[in-house]
């Protein structure tokens, strides 16, 4: 027994020389990171909860529903009208499909149709007009108007409340006036000949309601706006009288708001019908693969490493900046002066003149060395003022030429042609 721990220790020491401690992890564990960010998780939960509560509360308050929905109590709904009609013994059927509406129409009911999104096909509407005894079309689209009331056109919005009945239709007579917010329809001569009558005229512009007969002998009323039926506006002027007169003309009423299912079945097949069944799942799979590949490639391999870069400034910047300043201010004389000072100093030291030598001395010495006209040399070195850019370039070139010539005359004589340049630090 006493030997066992020793053996164990011995093997441990041979296998693992030195102490082995796991390296300190800098990445927090999942649990730690959740704990550290719990306040944010709390905030997120609170936000979600708030959103849910808000949604529920808002839904409870507004109720919502489609425009002119039979059970929509909102200002744009039509529940008020439906309730009133129901109280007066009218059986109201809330039809949401074409077949239901058609069935009701066959039973002799008045059909009120409001196709907000133009879902119902024109020929279906025409068929409904033929089948129904009385059809009230509220705010028809262009195509619907063509189909049921050829010759009647949209004519914009009414200018205000309408009290010119302008027709002998009893329903309209009873209403006597309509509130503001109506739309207008224009009835052309052909339509007038075909028996269409406009009521509630708005001056020259048109009528708010048009009455007429369909081919099958059924009565059709076209109301250009939803205003007379809306909960919010029905009590104004004669809106209620018109609405009740139109919708409550018979014992049965079919309140028909076409839904998405009523879209024309004869239309071209959709994309979904043409593609094989696996295309959509494969698309979904492709999206998932893209996300997975993105995470695979995007997951960072540990934190970024910061590098402390030393500051290194190109030394030529100062000189470049100064050159641009000269150029911008067209400081030709000043620029040329700089060149001349440099040239004079170099020529002076090449000709072994003292550093303090006067320009005249340097000019004459240079002229003597190059066998040039002293006045010309002096002009190059001091007198000529540049009058333009071309002049500046020319003078700079002449300076260079002069300097080179001075050096060339000395070249055979001196072993160091660039004696004037900075040879400081070299052994003589």
């Amino acid at each position, binding site marked *: 027994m006493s030997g066992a721990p020793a053996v164990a220790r011995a093997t441990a020491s041979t296998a693992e020389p030195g102490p082995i401690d796991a390296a300190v992890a800098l990445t927090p564990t999942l649990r730690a990171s959740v704990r550290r960010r719990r306040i944010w998780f709390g905030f997120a939960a609170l936000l979600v909860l708030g959103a849910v509560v808000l949604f529920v509360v808002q839904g409870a308050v507004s109720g919502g529903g489609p425009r002119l929905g039979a059970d929509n109590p909102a200002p744009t709904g039509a529940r008020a009208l439906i309730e009133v009609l129901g109280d007066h013994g009218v059986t109201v059927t809330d039809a949401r499909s074409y077949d239901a509406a058609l069935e009701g129409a066959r039973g002799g009911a008045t059909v009120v149709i409001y196709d907000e999104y133009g879902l119902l096909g024109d020929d279906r509407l025409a068929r409904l007009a033929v089948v129904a005894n009385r059809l009230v079309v509220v705010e028809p689209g262009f195509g619907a108007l063509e189909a049921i009331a050829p010759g009647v056109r949209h004519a914009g919005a009414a200018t205000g409340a309408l009290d010119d009945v302008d027709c002998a239709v009893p329903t309209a007579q009873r209403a006597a006036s309509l509130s503001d917010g109506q739309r207008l329809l224009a009835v052309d001569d052909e339509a007038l000949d075909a028996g269409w009558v406009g009521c509630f005229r708005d001056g020259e512009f048109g009528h708010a309601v048009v009455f007429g007969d369909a081919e099958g002998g059924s009565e059709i009323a076209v109301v250009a706006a939803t205003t007379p039926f809306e909960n919010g506006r029905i009590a104004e002027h004669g809106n209620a009288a018109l609405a009740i007169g139109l919708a409550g003309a018979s014992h049965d009423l079919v309140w028909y708001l076409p839904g998405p299912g009523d879209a024309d079945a004869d239309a071209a097949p959709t994309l979904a019908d043409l593609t094989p069944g696996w295309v959509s799942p494969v698309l979904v799979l492709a999206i998932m693969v893209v996300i997975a590949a993105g995470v695979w490639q995007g997951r960072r391999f540990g934190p970024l490493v910061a590098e402390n870069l030393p500051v290194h400034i190109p030394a030529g910047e100062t000189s470049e900046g100064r050159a641009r300043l000269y150029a911008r201010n067209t400081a030709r004389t000043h620029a040329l002066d700089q060149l001349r000072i440099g040239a004079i100093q170099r020529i002076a030291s090449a000709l072994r003149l003292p550093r303090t030598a006067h320009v005249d001395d340097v000019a004459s010495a240079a002229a003597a060395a190059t066998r040039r006209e002293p006045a010309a040399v002096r002009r190059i070195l001091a007198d000529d003022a540049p009058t333009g850019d071309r002049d500046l370039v020319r003078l*700079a070139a002449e300076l260079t030429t002069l300097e080179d010539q001075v050096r060339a005359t000395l070249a055979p004589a001196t072993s160091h042609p660039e004696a004037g340049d900075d040879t400081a630090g070299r052994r003589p």
Partner: protein
Amino acid sequence: MAPTGRFALVLALGVVPVVVAGLAGAPEAWLALVGWLLIVIVAASVDLALAASPRRVALTRELPDRVRLGEPVTSVLTVHNLGPRTLRATMRDAWEPSAGVIGPNRTARSIPPGERRRIVLDLLPQRRGDRRTTQVTIRSAGPLRLWSRQATLASPGRVRVLPPFHSRAHLPSRLTRLRELDGRTPLLIRGQGTEFDSIREYVRGDDVRSVDWRATARHADPEVPGGMRLMVRTWRPERDRRIVIVADTSRTAAARIADEPRLDTAYEASLLLAALATHAGDKVDFLATDRRLRGRVHGATGPELLARMVDTMAGIDAELVEADWAIVPGQVRRVTSRHALVVLITAADSPGSARGLLSVLPQLTSRHTVVVASVADPALIDASRSRGDLDEVYRAAAAERGLNDAERVGAAIRRLGALTVTAAPHELPPALADRYLELKASGKL
């Protein structure tokens, strides 16, 4: 946690069952998709659960302490798996970019439990100074290699990258010249430091003024009866002089000239001068200063001097502050109270930035021999000579102005009794060494 490429691939393979099922109909295709996703998710979860923990790992490093810039470094990281499972790891050693890891910095190793593996990285540091790594990131994959666990572990490492000392190429020729100084007669002035060495026979070329007539009188020429042999005294260069090199690390040292920062040129020049001077038997001190003392090497000789100098230099970079020259005389006084050669390596090229230097120079020149070494920009000289079109003329004018400024500052420095050395970056170290040899030959130290 991180998915692998294999996970994405396996997910993508779901196309096959979905399409096959889709031939029967759309609902079957959706069912196949959901089924495939379930399979993949279950497989990934199992894989993740079976992956070894990337945290139960011990890390040890083997790194050389110092390396010269431009030389390769081998970094060895030993990873010891302390966990009970095989670690299928991909590892990244987070070296700084300027540490210059050669090749990809991702190493894959499979380490059985209790065993250890070495990870060898070749580095070629790109900058001098301390190149560091602080962490190692380990990504541990499961047996199916669908998902991996990832953790970053602390594992600090450091390599001190020393200045390259390229200018040591100039050292042999200067040492030769230094040896030539031995036994030569000083030309004109025998300074205080010049020491009498020996007396030998005159040979052609010796300065006649160093003929020792008393010694000549004692040496009769055996070949010519009654004739004398001319004897001359020889001198050997002074020894045990003190040299204080002051490198300016202020904002002007950050300027890059001919693709080398002024500071690096200053280091090269300091190293060459120090190597030469320590061979010549002089004592060298090094100071790096801007507004405060950044580095100091004092009292080292021989090989130790260079080692300590490069070590001090390695960590010092130029700072964007104006140099405070007022502290320099005090620092020099602290090094030595005797006469010394003080070498100031700075940028003496514009009157504005040299004002501080000029104001303290008299304090230094009154006691010491002062050399101000500065880098000249060869680009300026080139620019001042090309005058082809208008832009170039303006540029030449600006360059001339810059040269002129530098010339004026140099003249001012010389008027204050200091010597100047100005040369292009690659020529400054030998130029400074030559100036030192000159001073030594003339016994002015």
